[in-house]
């Protein structure tokens, strides 16, 4: 491979990025050194196995990646705002739409989802940690360093440019030589392995770590959504790993899985990648549904309507999602019968989804509704997802899809479900659980500004794209002609869409401002129950102590905390004598971080086809695995005295005496 262009050169924007990366890195290093924070960083964060801290790190990284992916989006929209534009070079444009998609799905949506998993699930099911805290840290660091591997590609070696799913044969050596495509493969391969581990971790956590009195049928719906999503992860991420391995074999060893020559079959890539890719979008949307189920119940002061049908719908979605992948390429020519099966399966998914929307609305019906920030995002979600779902059913009609295929109509559709469903859902979840994890409520006023700029920006950006699709504009188009006379062609709608993208960008800036402002001046939550919640996470202090529950909570039914509060108000609640016992907790470990660093080295080496470096990295991975296997001193007990001290300090702090424990 030609490695003469190790550093990307020639583009002033890249030089700007180089300078800013160096400046930011220097600033961080100087800050950490000057304030002697290196030890703190290592002890409190890098080696942590505490699910709450891991959740916070996931949240920070996903917001960072939302910024990066958002900058990509804005650059694309600037390029498309006017006809015949050469704001970006065409090659650069290809790189940007590739990294935008990859980053937004794999390095923004996935970690945001894992942030919510980690922050909420153990607290909601009355557990002290996840089933495998060490593995949880491994998952995080694999994600993080995988994401960094992809992200350095734009200054070192060059970014991938074959689209976010890198269709073969374009992604093969013949058409995409150089390290860019390898960065894509190794970045998402490494973080994908982490995602698979997280899937295993949360399935076992939910099945085995619930407080002994919580039955599955009383489990909060967010935890159910995590279970459904994790099961889907287990089903499809192995396919993802294998498929990426096949492309690696093609590129690195000269194989012929997906090449045009040697008997390879490029359509096999498209099938395999969508066997993962389609369930993947349900994987990210299911937890968003779970978030909404919690929020609607809390802010309507009612039990969720149709709990059993909610659970059934989620499981149905996660199963049927395996049988829809061909709808991404009805034009493959598999024949009418095959297309019918996949078209119908795709439409069937709309049914359980519709059930869920109705259940949320019925929960609100005659509820005592409070319009808080999380609730705002929910109410924005309903119409947005409705339209997104309806256009999805339009796309699912196979014959019609021959017309919509790869047009901007599709772009508008999937942004509507991914932003309207996933992003709105996760942001709602962030607003909802922020007080629990940080003990701070996010400022309402700035939040409303953010909300409305996001909403207006969203519709201004994506509604014109439906029309553009009907007008024949195809996705990934670099530029277009201007037309004369009355028919102004695609230009006006594209300009409007770009304005919308900027508005969403402003909305994001408001949110960053809101978070920073609230950390400094925001309302502190000392009750532990910021929203008058219904589930167990609100029964403990905010932020929770390291062991979460001093005594494992007793659950008598659904919405356990709500009914316990009712009993306490009536005075019929029998407070049992508090008797603490030593709590068994895992030790911190630096191995997950080191393992991920070795993976990073291996990935970087194979990206540049430096075999010595790739193999050295893999050997490093094995050494860390061995080191862990030989480590027997992996956990400790927290003494009763320490629990008493912590609990007294936390509970005397505010008006938290209502809690039962």
């Amino acid at each position, binding site marked *: 491979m030609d490695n003469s262009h190790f550093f990307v050169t020639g583009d002033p924007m890249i030089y700007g990025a180089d300078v800013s990366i160096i400046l930011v890195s220097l600033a961080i290093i100087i800050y950490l050194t000057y304030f002697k924070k290196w030890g703190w960083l290592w002890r409190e964060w890098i080696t942590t196995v505490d699910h709450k801290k891991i959740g916070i790190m996931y949240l920070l990284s996903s917001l960072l990646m939302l910024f990066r992916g958002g900058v990509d989006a804005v650059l694309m929209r600037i390029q498309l705002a006017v006809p015949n534009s050469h704001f970006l070079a065409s090659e650069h444009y290809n790189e940007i739409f590739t990294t935008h998609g990859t980053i937004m799905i794999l390095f923004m949506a996935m970690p945001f989802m894992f942030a919510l998993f980690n922050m909420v699930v153990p607290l909601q099911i009355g557990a002290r940690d996840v*089933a*495998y805290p060490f*593995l949880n840290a491994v998952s995080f660091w694999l994600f993080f360093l995988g994401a960094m591997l992809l992200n350095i590609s734009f200054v070192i070696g060059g970014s991938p440019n074959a689209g976010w799913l890198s269709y073969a044969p374009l992604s093969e050596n013949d058409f995409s030589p150089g390290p860019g495509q390898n960065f894509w493969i190794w970045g998402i391969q490494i973080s994908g392995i982490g995602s*698979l581990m997280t*899937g*295993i*971790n949360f*399935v*076992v956590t939910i*099945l*085995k*770590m619930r*407080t*002994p009195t919580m039955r599955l049928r009383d489990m909060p719906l967010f935890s159910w959504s995590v279970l459904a999503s994790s099961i889907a992860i*287990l*089903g499809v*991420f*192995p*396919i993802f*790993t*294998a*498929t990426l*391995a*096949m492309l690696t*074999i*093609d590129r690195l*060893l*000269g*194989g*012929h*899985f997906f*090449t045009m020559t*040697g*008997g*390879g*079959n490029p359509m*096999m890539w498209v099938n*395999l990648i969508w066997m993962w890719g389609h369930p993947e979008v349900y994987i990210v949307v299911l937890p968003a549904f779970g978030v909404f189920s919690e929020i609607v119940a809390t802010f309507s002061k009612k039990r969720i309507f149709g709990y059993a049908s909610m659970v059934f719908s989620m499981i149905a979605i996660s199963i049927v999602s395996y049988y829809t992948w061909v709808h991404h390429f009805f034009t493959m020519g598999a024949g009418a019968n095959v297309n019918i099966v996949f078209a119908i399966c795709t439409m069937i998914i709309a049914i359980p989804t519709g059930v869920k929307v109705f259940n949320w609305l019925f929960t609100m019906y005659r509820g005592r509704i409070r319009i808080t920030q999380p609730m705002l995002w929910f109410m924005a979600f309903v119409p947005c997802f409705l339209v997104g779902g309806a256009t999805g059913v339009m796309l699912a009609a196979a014959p019609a899809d021959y017309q919509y295929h790869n047009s901007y109509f599709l772009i508008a559709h999937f942004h509507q479900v991914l932003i309207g469903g996933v992003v709105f859902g996760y942001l709602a979840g962030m607003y909802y659980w922020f007080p629990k994890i940080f003990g701070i409520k996010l400022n309402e006023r700035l939040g409303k500004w953010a909300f409305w700029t996001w909403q207006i920006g969203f519709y201004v950006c994506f509604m014109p794209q439906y029309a553009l699709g009907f007008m024949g504009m195809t996705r990934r188009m670099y530029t277009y002609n201007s037309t004369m006379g009355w028919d102004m062609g695609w230009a006006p709608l594209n300009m409007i869409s770009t304005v919308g993208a900027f508005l969403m960008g402003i909305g994001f800036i408001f949110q960053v401002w809101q978070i920073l402002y609230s950390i400094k001046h925001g309302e502190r939550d000392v009750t532990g129950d910021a929203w008058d919640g219904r589930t167990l996470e609100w029964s403990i202090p905010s932020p929770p102590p390291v062991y979460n529950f001093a005594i*494992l909570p007793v659950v008598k039914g659904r919405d356990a905390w709500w009914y316990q509060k009712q009993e306490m108000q009536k005075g019929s609640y029998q407070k049992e004598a508090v008797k603490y*016992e030593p709590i*068994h907790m895992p030790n911190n470990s630096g191995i997950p971080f080191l393992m991920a660093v070795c993976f990073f080295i291996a990935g970087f080496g194979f990206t540049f086809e430096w075999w010595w470096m790739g193999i050295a990295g893999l050997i490093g991975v*094995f050494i860390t695995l*061995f080191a862990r*296997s*030989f480590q*027997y*001193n*992996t*956990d400790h*007990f927290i003494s009763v005295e320490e629990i008493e001290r912590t609990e007294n300090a936390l509970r005397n702090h505010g008006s938290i005496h209502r809690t039962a424990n």
Partner: protein
Amino acid sequence: MSQTISAHVSDQNHGHVDQEGLKTLGFWIFLVTDCLLFATFFAAYAVLRTHTEGGFSAKDFNVPNFIIETFILLTSSFTSGLAVLSMHKGNKKGLIRWLIITLLLGAAFVGLEVKEFADLAAEGATISRSAFLTSFFALVGTHGAHVTFGIFWMIGILFQLSKRGITPVTTRKVSLVSLYWHFLDAVWIFILTVVYLMGVM
């Protein structure tokens, strides 16, 4: 230290979870996902099986070689079972002996596979010769890589066994590695059938 903790946990069980049981469950789920990984390689092989580009085809596999490989691997699965039986009897020496025999058989299997691959490459049947060979090397090679990993894993456990004896933790570790070994055996049966037997038939 940790042994006392594990014993403590399983004895008391005051809402504490049985750590070793938890890890076993997780490993079972991992095996399910690994199964799907192999299924994907099998699917690719099924698609590309006939794409030989006029070169080496599945009819040309060396029959004695893969039959011997099969017997060695099946025997190693049996000996790993004997190792677990010794462990349940509390026989540390027997356990270690059978594990060593298992991993030697595993190493012999890997050696034969490497030889098979080298012979193929010498005939010009390399991974880049045809799509059929790419999918063949990928599928069988993934299995071989798993076996190799298992051998190193067993070596690690042998050191721990000789130092710590049979404890709840080492018992779990031996059970898992033996589970993994049986799983690889099952996968090999599919490879034997789908790749080799259906190939030469």
